[in-house]
Structure formats: structure tokens, C-alpha cells
């Protein structure tokens, strides 16, 4: 899917007409919903409300975008599906050996390092605070970070709705800066790896959607050269060194 965004270089003066504003508002609002959706799926386990929504009201719109969940997903009793997805969520994102969803782990190999500080600083600068709901959660969870993008997009759409163009621009800048600075170098690549590791098609699908969303968003305001750099950064993964265990003495010392 592709979300059309106005170029950041478009100024208030250039936007001009109410039609443009309405169009941008609608797009930003849609973007906010999309961010909030993927954030909700990735930040914590699916509950009945979310599953009902996906299997009901959202089924049509999602399928219209080419996002098909299989019949098993739609026909499994709700409780059983919830439990299956909870297990998949834990193994994929929580338990040791998981695809850790934290920027700190991706960037430093450890939990709760500087990327967590940067994330919470960004939230606070925008008037939001962070409160964990379960133990072991940190502000640099990719789900939370996507949720923050959703909040900014929502606020931007609200500002547009009352024609506070300066404020809407400020919010857009903030969102794009956050996206570039805090997610751009690892988020899409992480989604790809997580999707590869996911056993359940639900998470595979949503992670692929998220990856596409992030690239799409980045491509709206990042030039091609920088985009190539980001693509390279997102390809990072542990190297396989050409190491011969026999070349050293076997003592291990």
C-alpha cells in the first residue's frame, strides 16, 4: 500500500486552498489510524476487541488493501485465537531469544540504553509521558514508537481541521524527525526480520505492512541518497565471520 503525503517543502503559503487542507487532513487522519493500528498490534497482545475489529469492521478495508488473513484466522473461536496469538506474541517479542522490539537492543545489544532516553524525551517534548503496563517494557518499544507517530499524526489532523496550519506543520515536522531519527535506521529492517521469524500469518502480515508503511513514510521526506543509506542500515545483521576454530591452539586460553 502507499500513503500519499504532501512534501515537507510545501509551505502554508503554498497550501493555500481549503481543498488542499482538507485533502492533507484526510490523509493525515488516515495515516494516524494506520499508525495506531500497527502500534496496537505490535505493542501488546491482541485482545477480543482488536480481534473483533479485524475480523469484522476492518476485514473489508484491509482486504481491499490486499491484506488477507486466512480463513483459519477468521473462523477460529475468539478465545482460542486470542490465546494462540498471545503465545506467538510472547515467543516473538517477549521471551528470551525473541526478536527484541526495543531500539536499545537493536542499537546497543542491551536493554534500556540511550535510545530509550531519546524516545521518552521525544514523547515528553510533545506533551506525552510513558507508563509501562507490564514489567519489562521500555519507551523504545517499536510499537510505542509507532503509536507516538500515530498520536502526532492525529494531532496534526486535528490542527488542520481547525486550520491551525502553523501548528500542523510543527507536528508534521516533529513526526518526521522522530521517524527519521528514531525509527528510520532500524525499524523497517527489524520488521522484515520479525516477519521472517513469525510463525503466525497474522504477525507476518502486520509486520510486513508496518515495514511498507515505514519505508513509504520515509520516502516522503527523505532524499534518495539518504534513503539508500537508511536501506543499508536496515540491512544490518550479525556478521558471519570467516573464523576457523582450528587455527588456534585448542586450549581456549
Amino acid at each position: 500500500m502507499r500513503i500519499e503525503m504532501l512534501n515537507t517543502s510545501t509551505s502554508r503559503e503554498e497550501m493555500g486552498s481549503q481543498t488542499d487542507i482538507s485533502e492533507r487532513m484526510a490523509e493525515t487522519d488516515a495515516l494516524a489510524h494506520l499508525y495506531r493500528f500497527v502500534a496496537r498490534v505490535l505493542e501488546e497482545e491482541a485482545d477480543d476487541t482488536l480481534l473483533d475489529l479485524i475480523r469484522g469492521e476492518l476485514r473489508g478495508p484491509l482486504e481491499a488493501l490486499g491484506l488477507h488473513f486466512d480463513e483459519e484466522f477468521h473462523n477460529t473461536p475468539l478465545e482460542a485465537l486470542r490465546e494462540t496469538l498471545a503465545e506467538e506474541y510472547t515467543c516473538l517479542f517477549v521471551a528470551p531469544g525473541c526478536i527484541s522490539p526495543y531500539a536499545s537492543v537493536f542499537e546497543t545489544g542491551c536493554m534500556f540504553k540511550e535510545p530509550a532516553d531519546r524516545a521518552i524525551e521525544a514523547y515528553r517534548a510533545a506533551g506525552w509521558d510513558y507508563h509501562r503496563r507490564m514489567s519489562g517494557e521500555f519507551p523504545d518499544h517499536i510499537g510505542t514508537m509507532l503509536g507516538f507517530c500515530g498520536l502526532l499524526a492525529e494531532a496534526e489532523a486535528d490542527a488542520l481541521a481547525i486550520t491551525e496550519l502553523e501548528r500542523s506543520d510543527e507536528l508534521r515536522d516533529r513526526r518526521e524527525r522522530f521517524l527519521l531519527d528514531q525509527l528510520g535506521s532500524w525499524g523497517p529492517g527489524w520488521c522484515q526480520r520479525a516477519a521472517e521469524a513469525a510463525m503466525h500469518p497474522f504477525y507476518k502480515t502486520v509486520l510486513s505492512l508496518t515495514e511498507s508503511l515505514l519505508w513509504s513514510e520515509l520516502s516522503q521526506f527523505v532524499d534518495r541518497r539518504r534513503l539508500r543509506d537508511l536501506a543499508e542500515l536496515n540491512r544490518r545483521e550479525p556478521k558471519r565471520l570467516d573464523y576457523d576454530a582450528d587455527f588456534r591452539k585448542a586450549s581456549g586460553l
Partner: protein
Amino acid sequence: MSDSLKYTRRDFMKIGGAMGAAAGAAGLASRRLVAMENELGGTDFSPTTGAERQAVPYTCLACNIEDGGVAYVENGRIVKLEGNMDHPNTRGKLCAKGNSGFLHVYDPDRIMTPLLRTGKRGEGKWKRISYDEATTLLAQKLREVIDRANTDQRPEILNEIVFKWGRDRSGGAVGRFMHALGSNAMLNHTNICESSKKVGLEPSWGPDIESCDWANTKYILNFGSNVLETAYFMNPNSQRLVDGVVGNKAKLVSFDVRMSNTSGFADEAYFPYPGTDAAIALAICHVIMNEDLYDADFIRDWTNVTAEQLIEHLKPYTPEYAEDESGVPAKDIRRIAREFATTKPATTFSYRGPCKHVWGAYQEAAIHMINVITGNVEKKGGYCLPRGMGWPQPEPVPPKGKTASVIAAPPLYPLASHHVSTHAPYMIMKGEAKVSVWMSYYDNPVYTYPSSHVWKDFLTDENLVPFLVSFSPYMSETTEQADLIIPDVTYLERHDPESMPSGLYPCLSIRQPVIKPLGGTQEFRQTLIDVIRKVDPDGSLGIKQYFAFDTVEDWMKAHFDNIPGLKEDGGWNFMKKKGVWPIYGEVDKETAKIVDKNGNEVDPDYGLYTKEVSASDMEGAEVTADGTIMKDGHAIGVQVDGRNRVGFGTPSRRIELYKESYRKYGFNPLPVYKRLPSRDKQPNELVLTTYKVNVHTQSRTASLKYLAELYHKNPAWINPKTAAARGIRDGELIRVASKLGHIVTRAHVTEGIHPEVVAISTACGHSAYGRLAQLKQREKAAEYAQGGEADIDNNVWWNDKGVHPNPIIRLAVDPIGGSQGWFDTVVTVSKAQPGDNYGDVVSSIEESVNDYEETLRYAYTGDLHRANHKEVDIDWDNLPEPELHASGH
């Protein structure tokens, strides 16, 4: 300017050179500027902002030595650990493990939330739940057992609640929890550790270890301990050993089957046959007694034997006999005996080498006796009693459970006062005990126990262990099998009281959270409070009263706020600020000794056993014919030379070289050497020994990058002659096979090992414990993606995680001390066979079960016990019947 002197650069160099050569100029320098390291720690600064970092004292638990530490915290994160200069025994130093400890906190493989099993046991399928849900579930399971016990009016059912720990430094919290629940089914790990050392010492002089005054000694005999790297109290002991050998010119003689770094540091190193330490020690005693080099006064006044008795008992243990058994030349044994007896002060030290054998308790008792007959006990520079301090348990204290637990105190091992935990799965498999809830804390028997495969099989069986809970914050081989994981925090995030006798200055210390528990995780102590309150929400069971703490810190205050002396210093608040109490002085920058304000060394107390019994204690006391001072049915001292001394912690208050408690069950009451089955192995066989290395614990540190990089693979040490006889070259794949099965590893051909021994270290070959321990980030790059972390990605240069030997190590237990005979497994070593792959492990559960039955034959009721103790004067037909020990140990 024209008047000014003109110098060339060459002139300056000449002048400078001359100054350098002048002896008196050597000390010239600014006296204001000092290198930061000269401050000996205590403060630290951010290299980027220059701001002083918050310093929080704590007690280390990277291993069990409990060194004093200071954590430096910046922006709520631990950025550095170092030793606490106020700790009198560790004197501001941490080992490599301690320095790396903060990596535990931020390990991405740490378990950060309770997990509920959703798949089969061990399948790795989990569902995240909250601490509240987790503690509720555990409380329900416990309550079911309690309700059943109450309904059936059978308190023994409560022993179906089992708690097994590997390392319990909770200061009594676990015991409080279990006793509150009414269960005595507590199992520690001590029988795979040094329990036979303890049981060799305790009946003799009270405490379970010795505390050598290394720094002031002149002669050290080291038996089977790698004290510079790993043994009990490694950090403080190694510091003081170096003080003694380097600073005090002490002679160090070391006996070990392997060229450890301690043996490498020794003046003389000997490589005895495994399990023959007692033969050497008794031969040393033989020489000392027969050549009249013993301390006659000390033997007369402070032991329960006579010199004549000892000379008679030691008759068979000639140096020549010891040479035949151990391979250590008789002339050297004789010389060492004379040197030890005539060099004052002197001390021995021993650890797992001697005691981790069948009959290991005898070996320890024999080594202990060398110090006793030479009168080196409690002398400056001698072999001293350990010094520790206690702390009160908050009132009310729950009583023990009403019924003894058969797995906590196996009736066939009445002397094994530190449990025989290796036997628990076998006893349960045989139906001798039942389990409803098994709790695992700081414990990983699926990796750390002999025949470790049996533990995996046992813990996987839901019929035998219906509900398995782990409190581990790491996915160990054992935790993988759990039904429920309620993760504890790391030792840097929690509270514990501590007092380790790690030196001659007794002290209390604390563990406190140096940062808030990461990510809202919950410390074990709080989990216990929560569980108890859910088991007994209204207090009607009478359990809740024992956990009436509003906060964990309240619990700690209850330990510390009323200790005389500490109370006046500020109690708990003092401990939070300083981490340790009392403060004896400061570390001298030149000598590293503890000195007072005037720079004088603070001498420890010596001669503890000679302290006078107080007049108030003597009121109402009686003195028996042999001088024992009795009061209220207990011995409180002993009269020697007409003075009332407190003596030792034995029934006679003397050192009991003759142990009536041993004789009661048909064991020799005096220290003896028993030839082990491994001594009679076939010529083509070898004895397999294991050892620890200086940068790892048994199993908990393989996931730490700093340490894994230093040591991560464990090839089998094999002597060149032994290797050549088998056509094995250095680095080649070999098959090491015991009766249980085989492993495929690599050979490390070295002169530093006894020709009849093959040695494989612990700490490697994990099948769990995080991605680094398993090198999973290589095998499954995508799944274990670490992204751009340069240290992990690029510097994990090794692709060999080692091979774990425990699955082929046979269960064989000392019938006295209950200790596992880690060094009694006989193996064959050959070149790897076609189809063998590095890391292969094959082991038989059936054979391990046979080993269990075999080792019971050595227990006091067994036929092999009788066959090996014909010399003991006892009515063999009327040995005590096996019985449950009251309320367990």
C-alpha cells in the same frame, strides 16, 4: 634578552638526563596532582560531562564470595562496578566476574516478565502474564496442597511443596517462606559443591570451613584448591595468599592433579593421583607424630585424642605407602612434613579436590588434622576459624514443618547435614517422595548436576513434578522446563542481608538495589510476600503473620535496625550508605592492609577458642570430669589449666579428631584414607576431573560478553604421553566415554595434567542461557538479530561454545558427607570415531539409575560400606535403623 642564558634542546636533554640519574631527584614532582587511580576508588566521574557519578554500595553475587562492591550510576544506569574500599576482607577489589556483573542487568535475553507455559514442557512456548497473575497462580497451587493436608490431617503432605535452590543468599527468606507454608522439603546444591568438606570439619571443630591467615603465614600446604582463581573466597583469599607468599616470603606447596594457576604460583607443585590427598596428609601426620614434631600441649589440652592414640592410628600411613597410592615421592612427603611442623606459623588450605570423592569427608578431616597436631589452630598466620556475623530474623519466626522430608534428609545419609540433593529425582522416581509444586531458585540442575540428563528427564515428567516454577531471570536449561516463570531481578536490583566469613575481620554487608529494578521487574522477596498474602489472604491459616512487611525495605530494617553497635551507628541507614559494617579502618595505599587513623595495622582477633566463658554464663554451670562445662544440657565451654574457655563448637568443646558420630554408623571415627574404585581402574582408563576457571561460575556467566570472550570452550586436558599412547594430537577430536555414554570434544595436550587424568572445565557447552552462551547469534542470525551492536556483532569471533561433560559424569556420593564424587568417574579417551561430531553428547538414563543404586551400597546400610570398614569397632548387626531426621535438616 641578551643577558638570558641560551640553551639548546640538547642542553635540556642533558640536564634532564642528569636529573633522572640523581637518586635524590626521583621523588620530585607536584604534590598536588595525583593520578585518579591513586585514590583507590570510591568516586567516579562521567568521561563526557565530568559530573560525579552516584556511588551505591552493594554486595556482589556474581559468584558466592560476596565481595563488597560499589556501583556507579549515571542517568539511572549502572555504568561501572568496582570494589568497596570499606569492605575489610575484599579491600576494594572485584574479580572479572564481579566487574562484569552489570551485563546481567541489561542482557537482552533476561526474562523481564512472568511467563506461563503454553506448549509442552521444554518446548519453548510461553504466554506473557503479569506478576499479579503469576503470584496468584502459584498461590493457588500452594493452597491446594495446604488444603489437602488440612483436610486429610496429614502434615506430611506439605512436604510435597519442594523448594530447590542453587544459591540462596536471601538471608533466611526462603526458609521463612517454606516453614510458613509448613514444608521442610528444601534442597540446596551443597552436595554438588563442598558438603563433604563441611562434614569433615564440623564434627571436629564446629564450623564448616577454615579461614587461613595467609598474609601472616610462613608455610602453606594447598590441597586440591585453585585458590588464586576459583576456590571459596577466591578474591579475598587470593589477595592474602599473594600477601603471604610475596610480602611475607611464605612457602607455598600445592597438590593438584592439574597445573592450576595456584600450583603454577607455588614453590613446589605435586600432581597426585586423584583422591589420594588423604594418604599424603596422613603420611605427613605420620612423620610429624613419629618424629616428635607435634604440639604435645595442644593435642593434650584441645583435642579428644592422645598423641599415643594418633601414633598408633597413623602407623600404616607411611610416606612410602602414600607414595604408592598418590605417586608423590616419599622423600618429599617426609621433607614437607618436617618443614611444615618446624615452620611457624603454617596452615593448610583445601577445597573441592580432596572432598569431591566418595569418602571425601575423611580426606578433609585428614588435612585438618595436620594443623591440629602442629598447634597452628587460631594462631596469627595459622589455620583459623571462620569469622562471620549473624542478624536476627524478624519476629514472629515460623516454626519448622511438622514432618521431616525424606528428600531433604535422606535416612541413609544421617551424617550428611547439608542435604544430598543429587538423590532427589531418583527417590521421587522410585516413589519414596511425592511432589506437587517444585520451586527452583538460582538453580540449574539440568546443567550443573552429575548425570544432568536425569534431571531433565525428571523435571520434564509432569507425573513426577506436576507444577514446576522457576524464579530465574534467565532461561537456563532448567527454567526452560518450567510451567511458570516468575523472574527475580538481578543481584544489583534487590535486597539481601549478608555476612560471609571471607577473611579475619567479621562483618555484615548488604545487597541493595543500585538502580530501580529494570523495567518494573519485581524482586524475589516481594514475590514471596505477594504469594503468602494470596495463600492466606485473611490470615486464617496463620501464615500471613510471618510476612507482615509493608515493604521489602521494612523487612531489611527488621534485620538490621536492632543489632547492638550497628543500631547506634544508624542501623539500616548506615548499611545503605556504607554497604558494610563495622568499618575497621582504611586500606593503606602502600601495603593494602587495613590500618587505623594512625596508620597502624588493625590486627584481627586470634585464639577465639581461648576466650573466657563469662561469669554470667558460668552461673549454674557444671564442669564434668573431662573438663567440659555444661549448662542446661549443653556444653558451653571447657576448663583448661583451670580456666574456663569457650572452646570449639563440638560436644566436648575440644577439637574432636575422634568423631563418635562417625563411628555410630560404622565409619572410622579417625581420619583414614580409603582407596577409591577409580584407583583400581584398568590401565587403558583415565579418571575424569572437572574444574572451574577464573572468569566463570558453574553456569550463570556464559551469557556475559566480557567473560565469554575470555573463556568459552573447554577442550579436554590430556598428558602428552597419554595422548601419544592413543594417537591423539593437540586439537584433535576425541571421544571421552564413561559407563553412561560419551561426549565428543577436542584434546588439549599439555604437560600440566596427571598422565592418568583427563580434565574438562565447567561453564561451557550450554544448550540454553541466552544467545551468547549458545552462540545462537551465529546459528540463527535472523532470529537472534542484534542489529548494529558492534561488540556483539563483530567481536563474537569464536564459533566454539565448548562441550559440557556432566552427562557422562556418574553419580557417586560420599556416604559420610553426602558429597558428589565429581572426580571419581572412570573414562576411556580415544580418537573420535567415524561419524562423531564435535559437541555430540550421548548418555543413558538407565545407567544413571543403576549408578544411584550402586552408590547406595556405600551408604551406611550398604554392603560396600561394611566391606570397606572392617576395622571399625562396632556391632555391625545393630547399626541404627534408617530414620527420618526430626523436621529435616
